[in-house]
């Protein structure tokens, strides 16, 4: 038991969070949603509650009109595992998955009206798992087919998190093409990173399902899911085993990892330190002695008849005002120096070259 106690105290964290992001939309990117949902499922199974998971899915595959098996998202063509399940809680969905929202979640600079389920309320004793998947390239990850997040921005966001001690240790996993480029620029301490492919390599998908018509999972995440299915909350498997998942023979791409920023040896890092939520527990040996008879206390409150007003809805939005509002006049700003200079140059050159006499033809 002493060994167990030692191991529990070695990691130093008291709670676990997970931020799982799928960045691509459209039906043919089914596999990215399936990737994210399989990591979600493993993380929930190993103990992290929904209140500590921020799940961002850029598109809805389960209820997509093109899904021949609605309300399901499968990970394997034998349809053994429906990773959508009964109790998936998506926090950021569809168009809410943007680079801005992702960075807001990480850094905590969220508008005050954001509900608690959309926030990452981690503290300095939280271990955070960040999983991202989608289409990527050398140094960037594409969000929603219209914007990108670069590796420098991601590294800066992690540094902002470290400055405010929003994590104890961070595990970053990315399954995209050229995924290793995304963790090249990290410089904050206590970050361990895994990627599905090196720079210059593509991450490949696993296998298509002819019934559903798309590729169901990416190879790397498929083998990671297989690996995680063997893990249970009390298992002692460490990170070195996770590094071995999906060798080149199975994955075609070469998975990479980065541990130089991490203080502990990966040998000592349990999978459940990040994927599960094993809490440190102490037996309570003390009690407070309470005086049970206190004279000055009425045990029963007198029945109060409160005159209650009939309930009605509060004024939510001034709808009448909004409908009839005129569009706000944008303030006019004079053109800036660069534009003015450019036009002055163009006009001067034109008239010098072609002569002043042409001016009367212009005006």
């Amino acid at each position: 038991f002493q060994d167990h106690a030692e191991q529990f105290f070695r990691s130093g964290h008291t709670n676990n969070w997970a931020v799982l992001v799928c960045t691509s939309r459209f039906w043919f990117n089914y596999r990215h949603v399936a990737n994210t949902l399989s990591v979600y499922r493993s993380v929930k199974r190993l103990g992290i509650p929904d209140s500590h998971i921020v799940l961002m899915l850029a598109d809805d595959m389960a209820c997509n009109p093109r899904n021949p098996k609605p309300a399901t998202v499968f990970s394997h063509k034998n349809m053994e595992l429906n990773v959508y399940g009964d109790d998936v809680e998506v926090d950021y969905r569809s168009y809410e998955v943007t680079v801005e929202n992702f960075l807001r979640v990480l850094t905590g600079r969220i508008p005050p009206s954001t509900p608690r389920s959309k926030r990452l309320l981690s503290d300095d004793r939280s271990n955070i798992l960040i999983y991202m998947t989608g289409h990527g390239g050398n140094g960037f990850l594409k969000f929603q087919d219209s914007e990108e997040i670069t590796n420098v921005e991601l590294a800066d966001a992690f540094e902002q998190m470290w400055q405010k001690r929003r994590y104890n240790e961070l595990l970053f996993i990315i399954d995209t093409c050229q995924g290793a480029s995304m963790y090249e620029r990290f410089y904050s301490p206590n970050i361990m990173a895994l990627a599905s492919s090196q720079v210059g390599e593509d991450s490949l998908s696993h296998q298509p399902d002819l019934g559903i018509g798309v590729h169901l999972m990416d190879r790397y995440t498929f083998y990671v899911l297989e690996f995680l299915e063997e893990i249970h909350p009390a298992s002692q498997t460490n990170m070195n085993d996770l590094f071995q998942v999906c060798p080149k023979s199975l994955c075609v791409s070469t998975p990479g990892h980065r541990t130089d920023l991490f203080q502990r040896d990966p040998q000592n890092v349990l999978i459940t330190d990040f994927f599960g939520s094993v809490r440190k527990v102490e037996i309570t040996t003390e009690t407070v002695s309470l005086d049970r008879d206190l004279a000055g206390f009425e045990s029963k409150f007198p029945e109060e008849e409160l005159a209650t007003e009939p309930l009605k809805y509060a004024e939510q939005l001034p709808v009448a005002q909004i409908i009839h509002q005129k569009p706000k006049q944008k303030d006019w700003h004079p053109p800036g120096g660069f534009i003015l200079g450019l036009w002055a140059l163009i006009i001067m050159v034109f008239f010098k070259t072609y002569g002043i006499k042409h001016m009367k033809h212009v005006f």
Partner: protein
Amino acid sequence: QVQLVVPMAVVFGPGSVPGDLPRPLPFRDVQEMEISVNLRTSVTSRYEMLYRSTTGQEEAALAAATAREAAAALHPLQDTTLGSLTMYVVPETSSLLPQGINVYVGKHRSALVRAGGSLAALQARLREVAQVMSFTASSIAAALSDRAPDGQLSPDARRYLKSSLGYEITFSLLNPDPKSHTVDWDIEGAVNLYVKPVLDKLSLVANFSVDSQILYYAVLGVTPRYDKESSSFLLSAHSLPHVINPVEARLGSSAASLYPVLNFLLYVPERSHSPLYIQDKDGAPVSTNAFHSPRWGGIMVYNVEAPASRQASLPLHVDVDMARVMEVFLAQLRLLFGLSREEVPPEFLLERPGNEGLADWELDHLLWAHTVENIATVSTTLTSLAQLLDKIGNIVIKDDVASEVYRAVASVQSAVTELSLGHLHAAFQASKEAVTSSERAFFDPSLLHLLYFPDDQKFAIYIPLFLPMAVPILLSLAKIVRETRQQKKEPTKMD
């Protein structure tokens, strides 16, 4: 940079004055000590002691029969500002303190100390008492745990709740077997009777809000073992960490507030698993039948007595003994905040604080740690904000962000000043304000830096736009320059 000043009064009762005083009473003395957390951070503690002899009233109070009565009688005569301490020295042979006890720590801010012969021995003992009642090097290091290198701190240092402006306390009753047990708990009454006095005392530290709920069919994640010898079910210590997670998903974290939540769960085991006891590491059943998890809360197992007659009709009605439950929950609350009595040396006797839950000096202990932690947090936050704004030049700083920063700086400076003057209350309030302002400034939604323009991308965007446009302009410019130069060489012929 930060100086923690504790004003102390050492009052010598009749017959307890040591022979080797350097100066006649009353006189003042200062003891300074440096607590260094890492290479750059250190905190100086300064005990400003006033040695004097007792007044007539204090002498009369010290003549009481027991230490408890003496402490009660002395209470109205002493300085009760937050952070100050008063030590009454009694003669070595005094019977006021029981045999073997050298220090009696009252539940307010005073202690009765047995004289030790020489001044040096007395001062050593006084130093020990002062550290127990205000702060120790380890408690300050724990408060500054962000800055300490990892190897130095004991794992204990990381388990206390961080200083926060408020806490939510949720009491939950888990009834996995409603068919067999109808459990009634008067939680409202218990909260008003037992919990409110403690929270009222802690209201200085933070805002507390309390709620409660009852969950049915919520089972523990672990199946307990049946033990034939005691004919009861046992939960071993190493299976306890896995108990919490399945329950946590059902607890429902509060949607309304962003304060840390402390969950206290009362579990009434199913009839088929009754009675259920928790085993500690050595295999002995735990007397409180409860365990807690740092920064999360606590769980207590409440066993229902088997009914007298076998044919009792189900469901059995259970009236929970809230006093027994609250004794454990309040103890867990104290432990979660870091107020444990384990580190106190054996020759000390601590007065029980009764229904208030914690002694005044324990409150001070918490305030010292939180003030230091707040000041450290504010300085880290403001420094990192300044670094961020330096690095990314084109973030626009709104006026209210700027005013929050100024307010945070002013508050933290006043907190440090108040600490160096020994005003703990004012220092704590100033540090709380500083933390609020600095957090508001740092986490302002407008400070998002989506403004990374790498150089190669800048070229890639602007060159295709401006290069074709610039070609005729540059060529014409060159032509103009050539013409002007030619004109200068040959003066224009005027006809």
